[in-house]
């Protein structure tokens, strides 16, 4: 049997290793979400997301110490596409909820828009952050920290056209 040239063999293995996908430490998401997506690990968007979830958040954190990276993409909720909110708020229809998890974060750039409640809600979270996110045309607040949350950093975000006259909500 003809033996393999050790240099060619070594080069082939190296090529295979480099061609193989890198170890994926994060989940990649995009497309349409029809029921609440619960995050259990670091997650990033790899495309825009359209969300048709009602009665709960579109995306909810399900573990502590993880990050959602918007990666320049947009998460769009089911509120009126022409007018943004353009109607009454529905308190359960949140874009992203931290869902009581500790030390979780959301990093932009990226857009969270057209949710009938808050775009981003820190719900009973201790230590968390949202950075570089644009929240627009959500029916309640663009970014809200609920009273049970503490040590949250809201930094370098843009909040435009959120809330309705009926709700004393606002950009942040």
């Amino acid at each position: 049997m003809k033996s393999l040239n050790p240099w060619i063999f070594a080069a082939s293995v190296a090529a295979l290793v480099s061609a193989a996908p890198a170890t994926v430490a994060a989940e990649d998401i995009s497309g349409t979400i029809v029921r609440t997506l619960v995050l259990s690990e670091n997650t990033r968007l790899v495309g825009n997301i359209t969300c048709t979830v009602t009665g709960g958040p579109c995306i909810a954190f399900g573990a502590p110490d993880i990050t959602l990276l918007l990666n320049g993409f947009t998460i769009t909720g089911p509120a009126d596409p022409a007018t943004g909110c353009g109607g009454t708020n529905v308190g359960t229809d949140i874009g992203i909820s931290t869902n009581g998890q500790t030390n979780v974060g959301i990093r932009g750039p990226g857009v969270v828009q057209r949710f009938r409640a808050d775009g981003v809600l820190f719900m009973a979270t201790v230590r968390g952050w949202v950075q570089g996110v644009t929240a627009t045309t959500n029916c309640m607040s663009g970014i809200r920290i609920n009273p049970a949350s503490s040590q949250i950093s809201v930094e370098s975000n843009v909040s435009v056209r959120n809330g309705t006259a009926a709700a004393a909500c606002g950009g942040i």
Partner: protein
Amino acid sequence: MGNNNLVEANSAIGNANGIVVFPAANGNQVRQNIAVGNPPIQQSTSVPTGGGVDIWDQSAAANGNTFAGNMCLSAINAPCPAFSTAAIPRKPGS
């Protein structure tokens, strides 16, 4: 807003309210934000009783929420800086 949070370097424009600190909140820092045009003109004229301001501190003064270096034009219980017009170019003779 809950307790001991930091709201820094954000822009809040054209919302029902810009930045709101709720009554039970304490120990929060709101600084270096730009909050203008809240509520948007369209909402103000069509729903005049809706209210809304750029920064609204609904908490008691004893709660220790602080506001520093924010740019706003309307506020309740929070400071908006008095902008100087001295640097605005003026037509000669006016």
